């Protein structure tokens, strides 16, 4: 399973059971969760149980899986349980048994075989659109909006001197701030530590992160978070390049639509338009294909976008010189967070990773690992090819880094240098008269887990919290 699914999964698992019941009333939600959130084995289980009339005894189901795959089976069953898809009951013979929860089962059946309710997967707009937008146009729009959001976070406009190229609404900015991705100090936008980690992730994970923030804040904006969430799942099952009617939608859905347009997740000509188009950001939300790395989605990541895999554009040499074949202001400003840039050409920027530039990044709260992960995922194919040749000489069994090891090691060392001392606030206990008097409270502090340091010779010890130890000492007297 793609790593990017973990965050939405975590969020969903935290929801109360009643919420699941409401969510699963929508066939689109049931299908989206089935497609995106479940491991393959769990999908098999669901499909096998979906059309059964009676619960299946636990022992029978467990027999389907070979003993050596017990781990996978338990994992699948546990996810199904946590997502309230599978519930345990009793058969007539009073044996423990599994069944697919009623709401989920009936919704998924509707999704698979057609539903009485035609609106659950959106309503196509049948009137031809005179200003129809192509798929390429949608991708361009989505990419521009999304890079605009990221650019706002890292302060692209300040760097290039452009007047804000993408107009971000106040809602977007507030959401980023509420999610602790940026902070606003003296009217200046500063990216936070979480924010830097965020901009380095792949697009799909980023979209989910934002969407979950959005759902979490929905209640405070006066919207029903469950309705927003199930609307997101609906959007994710729409077809790219098709336009959809807005007239059947509730006020919450319309409001969500307007907010999502700011992120480039859907496209509409104007907020008053009668139709909208989902972009690739929406349609890849719950599909197995990620927004990155697949040929069909490459237009979104594009030559200037964040290419992973073969789309990398960064070359870094053993002498810390860095060459980045990009003209994207966003990528350039990301690189400039930890590099001293020197020259800029139409399709290339060069610079050097120095102790000073890495220190600057670390002072901002960026970690060495984040920098290395970024360099790694954007490494130029040439760099990969070159280092793949050396891989045969690597006998340690470690996965060979595509980056020069000297560079990655040095970046880590520069970070270590920054943490020269570790400080722990607390209390020093001293002046014990004899060893016996010292030992008892010291052992007590260790037992309750507050002891940080001790010296038997000097009869001193340091604790992070003193209340209990002090009480212990008083008691002894």
């Amino acid at each position, binding site marked *: 399973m793609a790593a990017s699914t973990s965050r939405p999964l975590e969020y969903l698992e935290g929801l109360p059971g009643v919420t699941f019941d409401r969510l699963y009333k929508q066939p689109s939600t049931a299908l989206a969760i089935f497609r995106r959130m479940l491991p393959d084995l769990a999908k098999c289980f669901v499909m096998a149980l979906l059309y059964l009339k009676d619960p299946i005894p636990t022992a029978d189901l467990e027999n389907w899986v070979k003993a050596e795959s017990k781990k996978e089976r338990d994992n699948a069953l546990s996810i199904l349980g946590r997502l309230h898809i599978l519930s345990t009951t009793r058969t007539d013979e009073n044996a423990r048994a599994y069944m697919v929860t009623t709401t989920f089962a009936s919704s998924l059946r509707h999704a698979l075989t057609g539903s009485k309710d035609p609106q659950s997967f959106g309503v196509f707009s049948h009137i031809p659109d005179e200003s129809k937008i192509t798929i390429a146009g949608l991708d361009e729009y989505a990419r521009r909006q999304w890079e605009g959001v990221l650019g706002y976070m890292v302060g692209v406009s300040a760097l290039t001197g452009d007047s804000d190229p993408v107009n971000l609404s106040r809602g977007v900015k507030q959401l980023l701030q509420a999610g602790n991705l940026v902070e606003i100090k003296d009217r200046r936008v500063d990216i936070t530590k979480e924010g830097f980690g965020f901009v380095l992730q792949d697009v799909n994970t980023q979209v989910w992160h934002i969407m979950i923030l959005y759902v979490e804040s929905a209640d405070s904006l006066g919207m029903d978070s469950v309705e927003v969430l199930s609307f997101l799942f609906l959007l994710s099952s729409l077809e790219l390049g098709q336009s959809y009617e807005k007239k059947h939608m509730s006020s919450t859905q319309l409001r969500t639509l307007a907010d999502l347009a700011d992120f480039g997740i859907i496209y509409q000509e104007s907020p008053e338009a009668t139709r909208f188009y989902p972009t690739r950001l929406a349609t890849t939300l719950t599909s197995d294909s990620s927004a990155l790395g697949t040929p069909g989605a490459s237009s979104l990541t594009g030559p200037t976008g964040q290419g992973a895999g073969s789309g990398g554009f960064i070359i870094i040499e053993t002498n810390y010189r860095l060459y980045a074949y990009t003209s994207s202001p966003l990528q350039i400003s990301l690189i400039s967070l930890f590099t001293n840039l020197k020259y800029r050409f139409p399709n290339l920027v060069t610079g050097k990773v120095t102790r*000073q530039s890495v220190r600057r990044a670390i002072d901002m709260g960026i970690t060495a690992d984040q920098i290395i992960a970024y360099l790694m995922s954007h490494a130029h194919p040439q760099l990969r090819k070159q280092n793949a040749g050396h891989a045969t000489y690597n006998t340690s069994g470690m996965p060979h880094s595509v980056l020069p090891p000297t560079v990655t090691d040095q970046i880590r060392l520069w970070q270590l240098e920054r943490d*020269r*001392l570790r*400080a722990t*606030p*607390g209390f*020093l206990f001293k002046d014990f008269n004899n060893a016996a008097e010292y030992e008892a409270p010291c052992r007590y502090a260790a037992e309750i887990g507050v002891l940080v*340091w001790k010296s038997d010779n*000097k009869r001193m010890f340091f604790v992070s919290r003193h209340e209990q*130890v002090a009480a212990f000492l008083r008691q002894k007297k």
Partner: protein
Amino acid sequence: MPRAVKGLLIQCDPSIKAMILRYDEERHDYIVEDLDDDNHLVIKESQLENLKARLDRDLDEKMLLLDLSDSE
């Protein structure tokens, strides 16, 4: 009679500890208790930021020489 003293326990390299000890000699305003091993001491909580800044500044000066040698 045992006593408890409030402070910050600092864990660091011996070289850093030596620097802190030297700072303290000037006005005795950093250290609460020198713990007499190579890498621990207790300092006043209010002095942490000040101490960090001073260490960074002094160490940067020494490192600068190294940095210059491999610049463009």
